[in-house]
């Protein structure tokens, strides 16, 4: 790192805002995609938009690549550092700047943890709807970059439906203030386009987010099935019946075992081959009407038991168990590869079967815990990162799963993003022209392609737009 640049950055951030020494940078070498590693040259921890912009201006002058990082919980390598690049972490931008109760929005700094926002507005009868499983750790800025999902996105939609405005620091270090809460964009929908762009257009430092009214009645149901197949079929039935619960999740037996063995001890019955976790919300009459549609369908599909959470504490435990399932799988093996693919919801059973077969054929252990209502599969494959041969089999299985999903009319990612993980698969889905258009839009923001280079868009596609 150029000493002049380092001096300049230190002047802006002070010692506490820099992570310089190697033994302190090492933990930043990966995000939740633990097998992809690259040591960053330097880690910057600015406290606000101004510090971020000043740093990014210096980095622009020095043509240094930048990767933004929230809490590093992403699963596609979106925050994996790049060679000769710096990391800008938002972990010291944790302030909630404004809560507008009457107009139902909040302005927050990018490093605010997802669940902290919901806690902050709980007393007002409001919450922030997108609830990724990592919501106790992940940052809202990271959620915006990845357009994160979560169980309740079945009803409320993913992050992009909840972003009203952004303050973006451009790769050149300019501050683009689009923070005003707007119903419709003025000009092009830059806020909508930025959301989910995986940190490749700039760094969002302040977010204006929609808050949702807490429903008066919430019911959490567990439908117990002997077979995973039945649970999958049941979800297709629910979609077919136009049922609209707020969440439709499936956990298979292996997942339940891991969850029940963990600190989470959520109370999932170990005798079930699969559990369908449903949530209904609204006014009492609305919930009752939904229940009348759901119950016979669930029973007809062979659920041997249907339970309702008795109180909020039980409900909280069930959801904590669901959301901690990925971590709980750590009991099975040192590393875990969480696949993320989407399939048409009428083909759930067929695809879950196929993904399982793909893993089994490669001698891999797979557990399923997923957002079934959105057709968003998450086969979790256990492995040991140190066993290179096993890792190769895992990646091969991941590719095979994606290909199977694509063949069924599905897509590569429902919520984790492409990042490094699936960059190679982009060409299976998109034509050169499709990718070139994405490249061109990106270069409008970042002509040098310094923001999170080497992610999402295959290099080849990028090169072609330049020639």
């Amino acid at each position: 790192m150029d000493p002049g640049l380092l001096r300049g950055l230190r002047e802006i951030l002070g010692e506490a805002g820099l992570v310089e020494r190697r033994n302190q940078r090492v933990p930043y070498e990966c995000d939740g995609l633990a097998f992809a590693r690259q040591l960053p040259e330097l880690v910057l921890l600015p406290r606000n938009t101004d510090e971020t912009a000043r740093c990014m201006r210096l980095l622009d002058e020095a043509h240094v690549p930048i990767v933004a990082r929230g809490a590093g919980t992403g699963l596609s390598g979106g925050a994996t550092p790049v060679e000769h690049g710096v990391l800008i972490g938002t972990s010291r931008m944790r302030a909630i700047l404004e809560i507008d109760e009457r107009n139902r929005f909040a302005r927050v700094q990018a490093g605010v943890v997802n669940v902290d926002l919901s806690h902050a507005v709980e007393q007002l009868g409001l919450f922030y709807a997108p609830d990724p499983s990592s919501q106790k750790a992940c940052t809202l800025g990271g959620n915006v970059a990845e357009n994160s999902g979560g169980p309740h996105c079945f009803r409320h939609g993913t992050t992009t439906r909840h972003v009203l405005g952004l303050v973006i620091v451009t790769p050149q270090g300019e501050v683009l203030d689009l923070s005003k809460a707007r119903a419709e964009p003025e000009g092009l929908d830059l806020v909508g386009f930025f959301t989910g762009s995986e940190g490749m257009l700039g760094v969002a430092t302040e977010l204006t987010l929609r808050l949702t009214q807490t429903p008066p009645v919430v019911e959490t149901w567990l439908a117990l099935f002997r077979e995973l197949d039945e649970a999958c079929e049941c979800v297709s039935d629910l979609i077919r019946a136009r049922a609209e619960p707020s969440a439709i999740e499936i956990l298979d037996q292996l997942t339940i075992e891991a969850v029940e063995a963990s600190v989470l001890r959520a109370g999932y019955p170990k005798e079930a081959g699969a559990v369908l976790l449903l949530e209904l919300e609204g006014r009492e009459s609305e919930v009752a009407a939904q229940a009348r549609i759901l119950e016979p369908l669930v029973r007809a599909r062979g659920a041997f038991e249907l339970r309702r959470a008795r109180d909020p504490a039980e409900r909280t435990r069930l959801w904590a168990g669901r959301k901690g399932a990925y971590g709980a799988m750590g009991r099975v093996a040192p590393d875990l590869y969480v696949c993320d693919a989407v399939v048409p919801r009428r083909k759930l059973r067929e695809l879950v079967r196929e993904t399982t077969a793909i893993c089994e054929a490669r001698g891999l252990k797979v557990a399923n815990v997923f957002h079934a209502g959105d057709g968003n599969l998450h086969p979790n494959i256990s492995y040991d990162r140190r066993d290179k041969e096993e890792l190769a089999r895992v990646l091969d299985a991941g590719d095979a799963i994606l290909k199977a999903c694509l063949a069924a009319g599905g897509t590569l990612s429902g919520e984790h993003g492409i990042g490094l993980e699936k960059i190679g698969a982009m060409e299976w889905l998109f034509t050169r022209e499709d990718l070139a258009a994405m490249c061109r839009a990106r270069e409008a923001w970042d002509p040098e392609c310094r923001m999170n280079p080497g992610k999402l868009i295959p290099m080849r596609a990028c090169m072609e737009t330049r020639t």
Partner: protein
Amino acid sequence: MDARTIIDYAKSLDCVHCGLCLNTCPTYRLTGREPSSPRGRIHLMRSLAEGEIQADADFAHEMDFCLLCRHCESVCPSGVKFGALMEHTRAGLAALEKRPLHVRLARAIGFGVLLRDRGALSLAAALARVFAPARMPLRAERAYQPTLTPAEGERTSAVLMLEGCVMSEIFGGVNRATAAVLARAGCEVRATPQLFCCGSLHAHSGESSGARALAREAIEASEALCDERGAPLPLVSNSAGCGAHLKELAALFEEADPWHARAAALSARTLDFSQLLAREPQRSLLAARMRASSELAELSPIAWDDPCHLCHAQGVRREPRALLALLPGVTRVELAGSEDCCGSAGAWSLTHASESSALLEGKLEALRASGARTLVTSNPGCHMQWDAGVRRAGLDVRVLHLAELLELATRN
């Protein structure tokens, strides 16, 4: 010695890097730095074990910066034994002597002399009262328990009480209250001077040989006191840190070591005093003696602050609250973030004074917001930290040990 071997590598592999621990970690929340988080520290440990990095001063600094509050364990779905991992690593670091000379010297005096000898500790406590009064609680008092406190009323059981090192030198009054409350709940309370320091501070700091020596002493002393049928008495602790350590004592010994089984047996009979009191018939006996009083009413409202080593290390959360619910005429308020660390963490508050103050500041903020007039805890480190904090902030709040409050409510 190969630095790589200082890591309990097998245990470190339990972490899948999910990050659910981050937001609970006091040092991560304070600094925003990944290496100062549980996940980051495990990453460093694994990197060291895999030969990617060296066990240098930076590494040691991050390991020492952890408060060992173990909040991360309470939320870790993979079941990472973070406390054990960290103690293991610190033990290795101590052996490698990677710390600066002055740190090593201070550790030698603290762990080698003060916490091994009642007289030396007593002298140090006396000096501290003179030279560092701001750090000492207002009602600091030395007291040793009689070897037998008879049960009041019908004797329903007998227990051995851990007096502890710091407790008897500084919180003698709390020990007295604990014994009194146990007695009022029908317990015959035994104590023995042979059971001095349990060695938890040694273990937390990686002084494993000292910890083992003290553990052996504690095991022998406790095995010597038996009930009518010859079974060793249950061991009751009123200090969360000591209780947590005693409940995991076996980790100090290899499984093949005969001490391992004896340590495990001691762990199995160790209880926090609140656990014992929340059981029947103790609970009913205690409840029957509760009387509302003006003294008690003046303490209301009260707030319970979970000591980290009680809630995170021992998983005890319900019992203290259940006991507080018995207090007549006292309103209880919840303290926001009651499971967050207050920044005491044994000697950490001395070695990391400014960070410790910053953590305490957050807790004081929650205390102010709660409107409580009495803050209740059950760990000497937390007690001192709160006491100093409340005085510094000029709050009209009393800091009491749970036992003191129960004693007051059952005094006739």
